[in-house]
């Protein structure tokens, strides 16, 4: 394509509508929220922008810091579990026969074709006290119990379904379920691009499969792993629906707090400040990623 400087008119005509759209519906509201974050409530619906740092200082209250920490913990756990699950999955897709690959990739992104709300309610149906998972556990329990009694042992007693819903486990489980494709896709892209002869050379030089995996495959797939970590961690950190529906009172994340400020608590300035803190953290994560991949490409060239 030509340099846009050669055709400034075409460039401006083509880029004006999206630029205006972004300005009007993205940057302006963002700027407004940013301004609110330095304001205070006046009356019931009024907000006065007084450039006070109070909202940010209030966010440093241990109560909120703890929720930030918890959000980090959930997002970190989610990212780690996703990575551990996605690595073998993407390896399997990479080394699957060519005609299976497309199908397997479709299976990975299939959940995206269903609304998140519906998927989350489906998870509730699986995890609740009388849900599918517990029903399955119960039937296994009962048959073990039956066999034990039949051979004259004491048996296991009555089945008490474990609480799988409305706790931290349910939130991380749900987050992993939602974010897994975000991890699998960049990993697959990196692994598929990788030159197979490097793996073969490693085997040829006497390394076993595990050694080859950790010494060659993982380092070569590192750009993909970094991408996967970042694009899993960031949306997981800001998750709202999953902790809202699957979590208990102890497993609220920062987005739930923000939502409360805008709705029930009606404290827009504080909600705005919390939102911006979340955004700064996100920027920081992206900057870290850029830093690391810069280091890598400097090494490569």
């Amino acid at each position, binding site marked *: 394509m030509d340099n846009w400087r050669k055709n400034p008119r075409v460039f401006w005509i083509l880029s004006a509508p999206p630029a205006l759209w972004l300005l009007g519906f993205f940057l302006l509201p963002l700027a407004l929220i940013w301004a609110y974050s330095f304001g205070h409530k006046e009356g019931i619906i009024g907000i006065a922008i007084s450039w006070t740092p109070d909202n940010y200082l209030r966010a440093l209250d241990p109560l909120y810091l703890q929720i930030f920490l918890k959000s980090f913990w959930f997002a970190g756990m989610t990212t780690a579990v996703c990575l551990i699950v996605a690595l073998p999955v993407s390896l399997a897709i990479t080394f699957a026969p060519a005609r299976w690959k497309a199908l397997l990739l479709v299976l990975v992104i299939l959940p995206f074709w269903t609304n998140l709300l519906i998927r989350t309610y489906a998870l509730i149906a699986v995890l609740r006290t009388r849900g599918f998972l517990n029903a399955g556990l119960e039937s296994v329990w009962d048959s073990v119990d039956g066999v034990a009694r039949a051979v004259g042992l004491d048996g296991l007693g009555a089945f008490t379904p474990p609480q799988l819903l409305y706790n931290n486990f349910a939130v991380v489980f749900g987050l992993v379920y939602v974010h897994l494709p975000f991890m699998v896709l960049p990993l697959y892209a990196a692994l598929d691009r990788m*030159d197979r*002869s*490097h793996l*073969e*050379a*490693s*085997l*040829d*030089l*006497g*390394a*076993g499969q595990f*050694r080859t995996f950790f*010494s*060659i495959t993982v*380092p*070569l797939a590192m750009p993909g792993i970094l991408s996967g970590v970042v694009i899993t961690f960031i949306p997981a950190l800001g998750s709202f629906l999953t902790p809202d529906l699957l979590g208990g009172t102890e497993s609220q994340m920062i987005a739930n707090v923000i939502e409360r400020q805008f709705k029930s608590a009606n404290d827009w300035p504080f909600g705005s400040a919390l939102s911006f803190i979340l955004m700064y953290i996100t920027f920081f994560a992206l900057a870290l990623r850029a830093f690391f991949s810069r280091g890598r490409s400097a*090494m*490569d*060239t």
Partner: protein
Amino acid sequence: MNNAMNNAIVQVRGAVKTFAGVATAVDHVSLDIFEGEFFALLGPSGCGKTTFMRMLAGLEIPDRGEILIDGRDMTGVPPNRRPVNMVFQSYAVFPHMSVLANIAYGLKVTGVGAADIRRRVDEALQLVQLGGLEQRMPAQLSGGQLQRVALARALVKRPRVLLLDEPLSALDAKLREAMQLELVKLQHAVGITFIIVTHDQQEALSMADRIAVMEKGKVRQVAPPAELYEYPRSYFVADFIGKMNLFHGRASGDGAVAVEQLGEIKIPGNSSAGRVGIAVRPEKVKLFRDAPRPGFTAFKSTVDNIAYHGSESYVFATTESGAAIAATVQNESRDSKLPAVGDSIWCGWRAEDTLVLEE
């Protein structure tokens, strides 16, 4: 040529490899490769050279047949347990490791002690003349240097057999010639059996002790370079190696062949009746002003074209019966007399230089 060549280090018996949807890549190949030999696999693109090599390395599992290395059956032995190492066509030098780490990798993963590693890596660096570049990353190396890293990385393992898959194809002509010499010297120095894949016949002829010529997954002929050049057995090999005047014909079974476009000629030795190929090297073809004495197979021809190549010239002529014949004339003195285009001459060669080939 190395001396200890009585001991077959690689024995391949009826190896077959078929890829789904592709013609058989390796088709009933049986070969013995001897200890200390510099063995070349030569053939056109897609004839199965790489596949064969990968079967030796254990990276491809043969559908049928068996492979013995150092007397041991390799069936079910994974690549990391085989006494062979490979230099990949793309070199496959690990991009995230320094030269040093690349060369040490194969020793580290097999639990060689640190002091031993250091010593052997130093030796290998010396051998391939990479001293001083240990700390470089692969991206900071030239093609020739990368190739040496790949070579050192394999040699440091002291394999019984070193496999080289077109190791020189990525290099420019000059570096390539230098590396050919170096490889031969290196092989003499370390005494390891080298099996090299190439589709450059000059490379194979000048480097190898023996050459296997492959076509469509089959081994057509295995012979030392001079024998391969002077006594090709089949039409394919004669055509593939060097320049050649080639004809089709039918042997009568009593020492004569009716050659298409040439007529009947006498052949050395005997050949059973049937279709044969007839060939003669251009440098064996002599040009005469008049009909040569008996003992020569000669044809009255007209000169079509002359191509000057410095040390030699190619003379292209057509016989009265319409067959094209090429002759190489050495320009032995500055005023070598060459015929002119359109001249009427005789092209002839000694009857014993006629090659009779399987079709």
